């Protein structure tokens, strides 16, 4: 399995630690790049060209929805999903419209595993 790069975006350090720990359990060899805002995520993506992105929604600055929209446009091959506590239907529908996934906090490991399987090279 090819080792991949995953960009983890959340303004909460604790949330990044929890999600990061779950990723390390499932994919110990993957490279995890962290960003604490939508703006940082765009810069980090430009430097790291991530294969996967997990994006919080409610963050200071441009927020996760706008950042996910830009990343969807600029990295069409990347698997991108929102990871949010905001379970409202309009957020889910907006994720659908911009072509990204929707995962809810707290993140279930089986849901994360399913996301991480979503674009891996079958070889």
């Amino acid at each position, binding site marked *: 399995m090819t080792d991949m790069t995953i960009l983890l975006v959340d303004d909460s350090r*604790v949330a990044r630690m929890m999600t990061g720990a779950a990723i390390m359990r499932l994919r110990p060899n993957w490279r995890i790049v962290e960003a604490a805002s939508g703006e940082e995520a765009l810069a980090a993506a430009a430097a790291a060209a991530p294969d996967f992105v997990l994006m919080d929604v409610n963050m200071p600055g441009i927020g996760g929805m706008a950042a996910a929209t830009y990343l969807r446009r600029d990295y069409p091959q990347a698997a991108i999903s929102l990871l949010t506590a905001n379970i409202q239907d309009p957020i889910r529908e907006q994720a659908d419209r911009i072509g990204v996934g929707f995962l809810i906090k707290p993140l*279930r490991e089986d849901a994360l595993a399913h996301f991480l399987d979503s674009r891996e090279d079958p070889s």
Partner: protein
Amino acid sequence: MTSIIGEIEHDAVTEILNIAVGQAAASLSRLVEDEVTLSVPFVEFLSPDQSAIRLDEATGGGLSVAVRQEFHSSFSGDILLIFPERKSLDLVRSMLADTVPLDQLTELEQEALIEVGNIILNACLGSLANQLGLTIESSLPTYVCGRGASILDSKNVESELVMFLQVDFSVAAKGVRGYLAFVMDIVSAHSFAATVSAYVARVMAG
């Protein structure tokens, strides 16, 4: 204060909040990997002063910590998730034990509580919004610590009231118990009541 809504609407609010709080409890249960028992929320509309007294009684007069988020929709206000201060580190421990070395837990306590609050308050607000067919915007969560009155931080005790939910999020094995409070002004409380009335009318009409 309960006269702000009729009897049927009060029942509807209790039911709607039961479902919303159930969603929040499920989130908490997944976070702490433990069963969260949930008492049926008893919803009261109280003045800020009455609420502060109630909160201090519930926490045995000790300090409380809370995560607060402003929310905006056709009704607006603050929603708070409140825990007794002396128990908050236990909650953080049960949530982060596998992730963070023990010596870093205290340093991360505040941030961890904010994240717990973020998840639980959004689960509650989100369920409320989905049931009532609304979009509810919310601010970033903030951390507060103090006694009842400073936790509730009513801007105007004359014109605000608190929808106080005696919700026990009891994490069985940890003995941690939390409370939820919505602080709204009178205008927002009336808008909330009207929204619930419309919801009841829709449900009755099938």
